[in-house]
């Protein structure tokens, strides 16, 4: 995987190979060592280490006063994070699955995201909300959603969605250091968990030291000239697989990993589409009223004639994510659907 990301390294050291989950935890640990006002709150984040491993090992290093298990009271503990942030702490608060945001979304969009604006900039809310997203392992309708489109529609918070260990650590450090609220969504399928399907792209080299990945800058993970694949998180892996496969047929696919939905790196999208003239957006979220439409509109805002063919969208077809694998695999934007879309857009 070629990435154009430029690490803003604080100090050059070596690198070590690790999973995305470990990279998330390392990003958190790095900042917790540096800044005593950082705490991590959520369900099963302590002894369990986070259901998806985001806080593995942190309890041992930082103890229960900073890695804090909460009751199943998302509204209360996200609100607690907000109040603590308002008073100058830098809390990270975990909502175990994006799917669960419905029980606490008010704190997120009406409070966390709006206080800075309502106060005319006088009050800041430097907090991070982490959430696990995505399907692919038959966890069904209430445990397989991405919903980053829902989050990105609501103003006042940044929304980052890393796809690999390098970005995961660097974006986590950026998110913690950001003076405003950041929602940090990780797809379970990029975490490199031992109990999920093996995914080589979920392991990578990560610099030892602290570094930031800028929030709002997409990565061109693979350069190409025939078609632009714009996507995010787990779907980046599928897109790269498809791109590699099609390279054998001399089809040159450019893959853009947005890395954050808010801010959305519109220049990166435009530059690539201007070059290729063809766009496929891949999104594991629901198709309509979400990321795929926004990426397309980014182009038509400026010039629809950049597009030499329909802009195809490969996303969850406005259907809940079913349990049975036959159905689930038909709903998710899997490589075969991505490949078919690329072929179709090239044939137009």
């Amino acid at each position, binding site marked *: 995987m070629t990435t154009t990301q430029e690490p803003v390294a604080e100090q050059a050291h070596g690198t070590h190979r690790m999973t995305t989950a470990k990279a998330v935890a390392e990003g958190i640990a790095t900042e917790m060592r540096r800044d005593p006002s950082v705490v991590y709150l959520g369900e099963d984040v302590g002894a369990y280490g986070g259901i998806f491993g985001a806080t593995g090992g942190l309890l041992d290093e930082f103890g229960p006063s900073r890695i804090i298990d909460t009751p199943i*009271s998302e509204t209360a503990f996200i609100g607690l994070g907000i109040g603590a942030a308002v008073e100058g702490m830098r809390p990270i608060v975990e909502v175990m699955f994006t799917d669960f945001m419905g*029980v606490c979304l008010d704190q997120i969009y009406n409070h966390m995201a709006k206080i800075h604006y309502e106060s005319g900039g006088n009050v800041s809310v430097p907090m991070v909300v982490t959430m696990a997203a995505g399907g692919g*392992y038959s966890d069904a309708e209430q445990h397989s959603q991405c919903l980053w489109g829902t989050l990105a529609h609501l103003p006042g918070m940044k929304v980052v969605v890393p796809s690999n260990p390098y970005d995961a650590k660097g974006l986590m450090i950026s998110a913690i250091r950001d003076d405003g609220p950041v929602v940090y969504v990780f797809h379970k399928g990029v975490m490199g968990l031992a109990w999920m399907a093996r995914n080589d792209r979920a392991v990578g080299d990560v610099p030892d030291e602290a570094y930031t990945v800028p929030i709002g800058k997409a990565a061109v993970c693979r350069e190409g000239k025939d078609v632009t694949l714009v996507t995010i998180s787990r779907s980046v892996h599928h897109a790269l697989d498809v791109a590699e496969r099609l390279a054998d047929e001399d089809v040159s696919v450019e893959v853009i990993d947005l890395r954050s939905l808010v801010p959305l790196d519109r220049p990166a999208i435009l530059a690539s589409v201007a070059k290729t003239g063809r766009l496929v957006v891949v999104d594991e979220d629901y198709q309509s009223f979400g990321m795929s439409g926004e990426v397309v509109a980014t182009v038509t805002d400026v010039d629809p004639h950049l597009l030499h063919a329909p802009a195809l969208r490969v996303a969850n*077809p406005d259907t809940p994510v079913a349990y*049975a694998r036959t159905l689930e695999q038909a709903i998710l934007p899997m490589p075969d659907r991505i490949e078919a879309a690329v072929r179709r857009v090239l044939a137009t």
Partner: protein
Amino acid sequence: MTTTTPTVPIGTTSLEPDVRRGLYRTMVLIRTYEEAIRREYYADKGPGFDIGKGLVPGEMHLSAGQEPVAAGICAHLTADDAVTATHRPHHLAIAHGVDLDAMTAEIFGRETGLGHGRGGHMHLFDPATHFSCSGIIAEGYPPALGQAFAFARRGSDRVAVAVTGEGAANQGAFHESLNLAALWHLPVVFVVEDNDWGISVPRSASTSVPSNAARAAAYGIPGVRVEDNAVEGVWAAAQTAVARARAGEGPSLVEVHTLRLWGHFEGDAQGYRPDLEGVAGRDPLPTYRAALEADGVLGPTEAETIARAASDRVEAAIAAAKAAPLPDPAHATDYVFA
């Protein structure tokens, strides 16, 4: 609040032998089922453990150890009464009489399942027995209010039973539901399964009071806690609560101190659990069997007969599920709209 600890000293229970035998039979069927599902769940996850693999993929929350709750509560219900359960629903579905074949087919993701394979183990919907469940903590409570509301509107004496865990009792929906049901005198029985744990978080780290039954007073309704995972204690508490609801006198809360015999979900190593060693010894099944045998309620070979019948029933359901067709991907987007 009343705390009842009916340890059922031998020969002193007032329960009819038939009722006791029925409770035991239900508990055995549940345990047999959970053991079989566990077996099938792990059967094809390897090498290693890949949660997405096998005939039963995804998360799997089994209810072993919590049979007394389901058996004791559902003994008072008919198929006209509603039950809403949680992410851990099998024991309640079985005790409430959900068709085992359709339920099993659903867990195996088959077209013949309760939801044609769409829902899986956390989303079992059975209109025939008004059974449903939800994987979102405490959010199964509010719909039960509506079922009770509809039942009461029609002048029936049907009731809705709403179940959550003790961890869930700290979620806002718990509070809102109890207040609304109490205010409108809805025929609901709220059940809290206190198995001491919400995944890795012990009750002491989630709940500011020792018992959720005490919280019933905050809504002006009766609250009772049944100690020791005692099935006959559950039966008695539920009898009162269900009768109250049927009589139009409003909701009650029944908390049962029960036992999570296994992990939160399958694959949970439970490294966080200091009580792990003692757990097997608290298994309610051998205890109840011994009590019934000592009382002569179960004859010398009866337990074996019950176990065999349960096993035959469960294995037949599993075999049927395995033989059933998988859902056709061409129909993945069916059923989005009614």
